[in-house]
């Protein structure tokens, strides 16, 4: 309630026609300044968060008990000189503080050192695998956001009905299913074939490697993508649906909807023009805050489907454990989520005029 603060301005309101306020450009310019200040604040916050991630990624992988060099050599008989050489090679012979400053400096240039296992620069490994992950996550994210918002809207509008109960029940169930298990099931049924269902979709990697190009190649990739995307969407849409549903239910008591109905708007128009835009605000926020969970699903689904992205790379690095690679991947995952959230923060004022002015 902002009524307390509005009292004073209201008193100044003249009885007759108010004098035309500052020319039309005035408030707009003020808006722009306010938005820039808001945006700058968000960017600064993101920078602080990124630095915190950097610090975390450094120390997290150094509390490991034991000697990483021993891990690399897999317990083979190696002379002390060789161990020292390895330590020097990976920069773990220096004091912790020196390692940290070095790490930060290099990380800012995108240099996360070399993989223990593959010996390639971590940055390069990540860069090569990034497109596959972006393709999969992006597709799944867009799909489950749309499906969740759409079904959530339908559910709330006919809340308590058969459709609502089915929708809510199904989404809660899918939400409780481990993503990797659902992936395995889908592989069993639709890739291997089970019962009367033949193997419809290929799995493993993102292309058949038959050297096709252009449209044929795109179709091939799409074909490989079906099952992983279905898995991610199935376990991911529930939260969107539930939040959209409950925020729309909250809005449905809103007086402004009665106003809209009183104006003579059709029911569908009341919903589309008035209720949904308001209910979308909390949903969008949640979609972005929960991106962290998407990363989790991504790792598992890529592992199960052998998708050649960052998630699979993470799983491989985990079994060694390949510290520089894990470190780099952790930073990339966390930074990605922070960047997307910052982006959402910057877009948000366009959806909700009450924010950032």
């Amino acid at each position, binding site marked *: *309630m*902002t*009524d307390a603060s*509005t*009292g004073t*301005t*209201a*008193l100044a*309101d*003249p*009885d*007759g*026609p*108010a*004098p*035309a*306020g500052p*020319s*039309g450009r005035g*408030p707009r310019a003020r808006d722009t300044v306010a938005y820039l200040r808001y945006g700058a604040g968000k960017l600064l916050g993101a920078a602080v968060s990124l630095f915190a991630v950097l610090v975390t990624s450094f120390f997290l992988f150094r509390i490991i008990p034991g000697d990483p060099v021993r891990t690399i050599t897999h317990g083979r008989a190696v002379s002390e000189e060789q161990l020292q050489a390895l330590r020097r090679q990976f920069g773990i012979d220096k004091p912790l503080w020196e390692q940290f400053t070095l790490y930060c400096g290099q990380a800012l240039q995108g240099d996360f050192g070399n993989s223990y296992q593959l010996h390639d620069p971590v940055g390069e490994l990540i860069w090569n695998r990034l497109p596959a992950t972006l393709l999969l996550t992006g597709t799944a994210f867009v799909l489950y956001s749309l499906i969740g918002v759409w079904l959530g809207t339908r559910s709330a509008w006919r809340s308590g009905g058969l459709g609502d109960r089915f929708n809510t029940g199904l989404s809660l169930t899918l939400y409780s299913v481990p993503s990797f298990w659902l992936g395995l099931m889908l592989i069993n049924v639709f890739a291997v074939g089970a019962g009367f269902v033949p193997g419809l979709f290929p799995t493993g990697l993102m292309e058949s490697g038959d050297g096709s190009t252009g449209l044929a190649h795109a179709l091939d990739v799409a074909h490989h993508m079906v099952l992983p995307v279905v898995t991610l969407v199935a376990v991911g849409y529930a939260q969107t649906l539930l939040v959209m549903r409950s925020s729309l239910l909250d809005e449905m008591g*809103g*007086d*402004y909807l*009665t*106003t*809209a*109905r*009183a*104006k*003579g*708007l*059709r029911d569908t128009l009341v919903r589309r023009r*008035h209720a949904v*835009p*308001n209910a979308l*605000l909390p949903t969008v926020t949640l979609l972005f805050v929960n991106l962290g969970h998407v990363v989790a699903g991504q790792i598992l689904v890529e592992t199960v489907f052998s998708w050649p992205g960052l998630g699979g790379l993470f799983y491989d690095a985990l079994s060694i454990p390949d510290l520089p690679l894990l470190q780099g991947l952790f930073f990339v995952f966390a930074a990605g989520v922070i960047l997307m959230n910052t982006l959402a923060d910057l877009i948000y004022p366009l*959806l*909700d*005029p*009450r924010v950032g*002015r």
Partner: protein
Amino acid sequence: MTTAPLLDIKDLNVTYGTGAAAVRGVDLTLAAGQKLGIAGESGCGKSTLALALLRLLPAGAKLSGEILLDGEDVLTMKWGRLRAVRWAGASIVFQGAMHSLNAVRRIGDQIAEPMLIHRTAPPSGVRKKVAVLLEHVGLPASRADSYPHELSGGQRQRVMIAMALACDPKLIVADEPTTALDVMIQAQILRLIEQLVAEQNVGLIMISHDLAVLADTCDRLAVMYAGRVVEQGPAAQVYESALHPYAKALSAAFPRIGDPASRHAPRGLAGDPPDPSDLPPGCTFHPRCPVALDRCAVEDQALRGEEERRAACVHV
């Protein structure tokens, strides 16, 4: 042209899905250009009455009786016709304008919306009409680009009024238009409504718990209690010398400026209005009535008296 009233409500009953009888057998008439005030505590059914006029009650509410708007029964209208009548035939200024406006859409768009829906202005001329309306209610035309949260409470109420006028309706229902505002702004908004109603010869139904405000603005008053009209008549008479004990209590509830006696008068009523789903037998007011007789507990009281001035009390 005709003598038929603008609005003629006959034996209106509203029962909510929960079993609450919110409005029970209300008869009211309103001629074009006339101003009718409806008073009562919260929960007496006055807001239900306002929503019933345009069939805006939640699904599950049962309505019976007749609501003749310009001779046409709102309750039996087809959906298409009803949508056409909404806002173009009768519009509503809702209470608490903060929540009655959509927070994420610009003021101008919200005022323009009914005009576009009802095609009362060509799309090209809508912006101009919005500017005219805003200036009419005392706001600069540039406010059309603002969002509700950028306005003060009084300004938002002005926007609601501009919106209500958008399609030139014959009837405006103002449901507690000034409740959330402080006294100075209240007076401004009341003057504005009065002025607009006089200029455009529309009928006005104003709903409030504040009898003084209504008496000041309206020609006639109806006092509601537990879903029923318990007293009606010319505004000054009902306010100054109420017949029904409830109306008396209501008019004493607000002190009169310049009348020292009113400060010492017993004020307010003990107890709460009855639960509409569990009404007491007999006269519904008897449990709180200071002058109740034994028979009040069993005998229901109908409105009685002359056509112009009636009350539903055993003492009348």
